[in-house]
């Protein structure tokens, strides 16, 4: 009576643990051991694919998020005659939370999905298998440069996102709403600290980058080799990595800024 249900739970758990094992195996096979001899040019090419091509969406959304944040912050702060603190509100919320998280979500939608689709198509047309036949490790030749490029580019995109967003906040707060420009910067400098605020944000985005590229590559590598399978994997990448980013952000915030 109840045994099939228990078996169902067991099956699910075994599959879950198996997939974690496979993902870790994939990570260690692509990162450790002798690297591919053309790793550097391949890596540069992937930085271009993942970083430069994500710049338009990252920069425009950064600008608009900074502008909206500044506008909404101004309306609340002006009631308490505290609009001078607009700079610190914008900079702190961007550096600590919004910058890393929003950039990571955009990155998972823009770059993570494309990684999964690319690797998934390689897998289903058996390009990776034929690479292995030629004694070229697909882990080293295909996965490693993408993984490294993802880990390096997202923190850089986050930094650019933050700068553009703070500038957008300045544009709205100072040029449109008439907050004093000197106060905007000096209050910001007074309340933002380099290590706890700027560097913790960068650390956050490094962790997000590892998670997003790992999930994307895993879903691409272990794709069901059909057209439907690729679309399913791509969707799964975006959903899982976005949820992981949000959940991990809460944990990291509690660790970094709690206590």
């Amino acid at each position, binding site marked *: 009576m109840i045994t099939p249900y228990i078996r169902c739970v067991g099956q699910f758990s075994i599959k879950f643990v198996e997939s974690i094992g496979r993902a870790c195996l994939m990570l260690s096979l692509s990162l450790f051991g002798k690297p591919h001899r053309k790793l550097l040019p391949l890596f540069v090419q992937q*930085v271009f694919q993942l970083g430069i091509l994500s710049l338009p969406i990252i920069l425009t959304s950064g600008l608009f998020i900074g502008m909206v944040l500044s506008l909404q912050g101004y309306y609340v702060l002006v009631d308490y005659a505290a609009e001078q603190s607009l700079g610190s509100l914008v900079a702190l919320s961007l550096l600590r939370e919004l910058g890393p998280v929003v950039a990571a979500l955009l990155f998972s939608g823009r770059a993570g999905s494309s990684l999964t689709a690319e690797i998934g198509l390689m897998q289903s047309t058996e390009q990776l298998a034929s690479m292995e036949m030629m004694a070229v490790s697909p882990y080293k030749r295909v996965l490693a440069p993408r993984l490294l490029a993802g880990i390096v580019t997202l923190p850089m995109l986050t930094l650019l996102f933050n700068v553009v967003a703070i500038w957008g906040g300045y544009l709205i707060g100072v040029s449109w709403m008439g907050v004093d420009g000197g106060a905007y910067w000096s209050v910001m400098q007074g309340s933002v600290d380099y290590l706890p605020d700027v560097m913790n944000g960068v650390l956050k985005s490094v962790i997000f980058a590892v998670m997003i590229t790992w999930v994307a590559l895993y879903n691409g590598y272990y794709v069901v080799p059909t057209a439907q399978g690729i679309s399913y994997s791509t969707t799964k990448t975006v959903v899982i990595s976005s949820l992981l980013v949000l959940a991990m952000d809460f944990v990291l915030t509690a660790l970094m800024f709690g206590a």
Partner: protein
Amino acid sequence: MSQKKIELWVGLFVIGALVSLAILAFSVAGLSFKGDGRSYTINASFTNIGGLKVRAPVKLGGVVVGRVEEISLDTQSYMPVVRLSMFENKGIYPETSSLSILTSGLLGEQYIGITPGFIDEDIEMLADGDTIEDTKSALVLEDLIGQFIYSINKED
């Protein structure tokens, strides 16, 4: 796209990221290489420090001349003891100087104001590890309101 063009774009991207890190560090976080310079520490005990925090500034006429380094409680006298780190390049003060805990604005952060005392022949200057005796505690709003109500009631 050729490898050369890709490398050019990636180079620009990396430089852009480094520039933004520099902007965030120096323009947003206000980091500076100069630091606060050499400093010496002096101690002071207050009866009530209010909402004073570590790293709060010590000001003389609005100019920052030091920072609060540590706040502890003297378990013998039950008095809060504040250790201040004073910047050497902002001068030294006679031991008759007094400290008071002030508030910037009506609801702002609390800081320590230092008032230099008189200098006479037998008055020494404060050196590392010295203690300032003349201190004035923080203004606690509740106490103030209590005194105000008490003085109103007395007039009736």
